[in-house]
């Protein structure tokens, strides 16, 4: 479903991703954890075309998004292919990034009607169904500023799902929320996991990662330091670095 | 000297403005070449065809400030009237051409004349050295004294009493020049303003103690509006009014001069003067 090989990325001289290798299988839920500045978000942004990777290879759903040629230069797929890939992936942002001038319903139907050329009625029907799933069908005509943070994030998940992506990415989906609101988002993600959705989640919620992920990736300093099942990573066999990180994390 | 700097600055600004226009937008506000009348008659002509040009166009464009009663001003119905206008109208009638009254900004009158926006300045314009240098002036047609007007109830009774007082004067006028060159200048505070009527109003309201202005204007006002003003005895300097033409437009100037003289001879000028001033105050020989 997703294949990342030897991925590297630097901003000016600063190297933020080095030799990243991992795969995500269909139906798998992958949690990416690690300290701030470890490159987790950058990795997600590279895979979602918000940043241009400097080298390596990315394949999404069997389509090559980028690779490195013989001269060591990154070569990207043509615009059409990149768009095609874009529609197979969905992204949920830390700050929701809902469109403030549109109702909840239009936030969700805008892309399906514009990009997938769905009819208004069809897009609307799908959107209402998604809102029902998120427990927000009563808020269809509300504007984002009228919703709580948790509600806004659920709308943004519905918005991403409206394009029927094959793989869904979450960039710290609960970081901007008050602690009492994180639960409702985690519940939604868990439900999606139960439905068999393929997901990559960058998160600071260790208990949640342990609970829901099939695989956990621990990043630090731009490298993948450790990778494996939650039992392995959160168990006694984990690397010393990870143990140290978790220990510090639990102190908070 | 002063004018040549202004010319250069204006040229520079104009070039920048036009460059911005071309680079910025290709905006449709570029003036359309609608009419064919020549504009570039400012270059020194080899032969003087100024009168012929006016005759061909069948009109004389008279530039004025239109707020200088009784010489040239705007009446209640927004018509431009006045002593100068009546005389100019008669001149044009006799020459068989149309009189076009073109309001201008008094501060840029020399530019308007030299660049050909107008053919003459005829608006109670006082003769001074700078104007004689910049323009081709007609023979003076009226005498004017520069006097002080004070409110009727004031303690100021002579020019000597003005020391330490505030005096209003019209910006850019010869009155201002004369006042600033006078001995009195160092003892008074001068408040320049755009027009004489505002100055007189301000004086009534107490903003100033006196106004220094042309006697022609002052007497017309006092008579017309029944104002309780007092004119201080004596004057700083007497001056004369003349019509201004472009430096090279000798033929046009002579033609107008000749006609005014003829009007003096046959009594028409005196008639117009009586209408505005009650007597013949003109000094045309």
């Amino acid at each position, binding site marked *: 479903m997703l294949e990342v090989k030897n991925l590297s990325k630097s901003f000016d001289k600063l190297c933020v991703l080095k030799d990243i290798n991992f795969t995500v299988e269909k139906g798998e839920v992958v949690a990416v954890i690690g300290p701030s500045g470890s490159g987790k978000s950058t990795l997600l942004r590279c895979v979602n075309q918000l940043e241009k990777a400097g080298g390596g290879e990315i394949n999404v759903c069997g389509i090559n998004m980028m690779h490195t040629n013989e001269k060591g230069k990154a070569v990207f797929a043509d615009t059409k292919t990149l768009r095609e890939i874009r529609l197979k992936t969905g992204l949920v942002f830390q700050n929701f990034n809902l469109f403030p001038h549109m109702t909840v319903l239009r936030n969700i139907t805008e892309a399906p009607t514009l990009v997938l050329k769905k009819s208004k009625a069809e897009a609307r029907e799908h959107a209402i169904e998604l809102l029902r799933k998120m427990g927000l069908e009563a808020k269809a005509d509300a504007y984002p500023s009228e919703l709580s943070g948790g509600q806004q994030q659920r709308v943004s998940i519905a918005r991403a799902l409206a394009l029927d992506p094959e793989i869904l990415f979450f960039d710290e989906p609960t970081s901007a929320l008050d602690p009492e609101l994180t639960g409702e988002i985690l519940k939604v993600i868990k439900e999606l996991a139960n439905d068999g959705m393929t997901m990559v989640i960058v998160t600071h919620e260790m208990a949640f990662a342990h609970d829901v992920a099939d695989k956990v990736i621990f990043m630090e300093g731009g490298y993948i330091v450790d990778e494996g099942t939650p039992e392995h990573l959160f168990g006694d066999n984990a690397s010393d670095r990870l143990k140290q990180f978790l220990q510090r994390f639990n102190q908070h | 000297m002063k004018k040549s700097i202004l010319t250069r600055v204006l040229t520079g600004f*104009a070039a920048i403005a036009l460059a911005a226009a071309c680079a910025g937008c290709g905006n449709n506000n570029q003036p359309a*070449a609608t009419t064919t009348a020549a504009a570039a008659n400012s270059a020194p002509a080899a032969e003087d065809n100024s009168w012929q040009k006016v005759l061909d166009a069948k009109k004389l464009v008279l530039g004025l400030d239109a707020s200088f009663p009784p010489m040239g001003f705007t009446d209640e119905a927004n018509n431009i009237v006045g002593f100068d206008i009546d005389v100019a109208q008669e001149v044009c009638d006799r020459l068989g051409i149309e009189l076009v009254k073109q309001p201008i900004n008094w501060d840029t009158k020399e530019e308007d004349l030299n660049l050909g926006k107008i053919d003459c300045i005829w608006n109670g314009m006082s003769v001074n050295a700078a104007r004689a240098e910049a323009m081709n002036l007609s023979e003076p047609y009226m005498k004017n004294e520069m006097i002080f007007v004070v409110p009727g109830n004031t303690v100021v009774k002579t020019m000597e009493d003005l020391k330490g007082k505030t005096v209003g004067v019209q910006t850019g006028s010869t009155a201002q020049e004369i006042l600033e060159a006078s001995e009195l200048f160092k003892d008074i505070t001068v408040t320049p303003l755009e027009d004489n009527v505002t100055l007189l109003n301000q004086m009534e309201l107490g903003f100033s103690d006196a106004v220094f202005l042309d006697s022609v204007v002052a007497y017309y006002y006092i008579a017309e509006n029944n104002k309780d003003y007092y004119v201080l005895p004596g004057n700083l300097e007497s001056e004369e009014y003349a019509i201004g033409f472009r430096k090279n437009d000798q033929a046009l100037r002579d033609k107008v001069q000749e006609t005014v003289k003829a009007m003096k001879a046959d009594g028409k000028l005196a008639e117009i003067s009586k209408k505005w001033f009650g007597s013949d105050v003109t000094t045309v020989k």
Partner: protein
Amino acid sequence: MTGEQIETLFGLMLEYTIPTLKIFCFTLLYSIPLGMVVALLKMCKIKPISWLTNIYILIMRGTPLLLQLIVAQYSVPYILKSDACPAFLHALLDGVDIRSETYTFNMMLFAFVLNYAAYFAEIFRGGIESIPRGQYEAAGALGLNRTQTFFRIILPQVIRRVLPASSNEIITLVKDTSLASAIPYMEIMYIAKKQVPTYASLLPLFMAGLFYFAFAMVLTLLLSLIEKSLDPMWRRNVKTLRKGIFRRGNA
């Protein structure tokens, strides 16, 4: 001044509100789109273009509008007189009749438009730059192309954000039209100034003030209505309210 005189004066001023409105409307008509173009040029990644735009804005905002109006009036004859004037420009400008009313009006409008476009450009640029990057990223992640992103996501938000500052500029323009009286162009302020010596009274100026005040007030109301109507929540509430009234009316 007698009542009859005031009535005459009022009628005269009413007549000359048309030229004032003409300057106002044409300036807005051209300067707003031009301002948008200038804003985009200023944000242009090609440095020389962005610099040139900056210089233009600097000059327009850094010199008095009154001076710009005067310079515009004299630009054509001075360029024709100048030795540095290239032949093609000379040929282009030679037929211009500087005595015509069209010339006076067009050059005046030219200065007004260039001046106001510079101010609008800065307002629009501020508006565009105030939209968070996340909005572009969200639109991109949803597969919207650049045109769709600009017109569907960015522009509606920019319009709402720039409206208060633009309203301010528009109200200022109402009063700035009076600078045309210095050209001179016959509008309300010109009439008022010329009627001062005629009546030997300052009342014409006060009356002109009333005209501008009335004009600005109507505009203020209109603009606040537009501002409200661009607020989606206000629009929705009005709609629901109307529906409610309608339903009750039919019951």
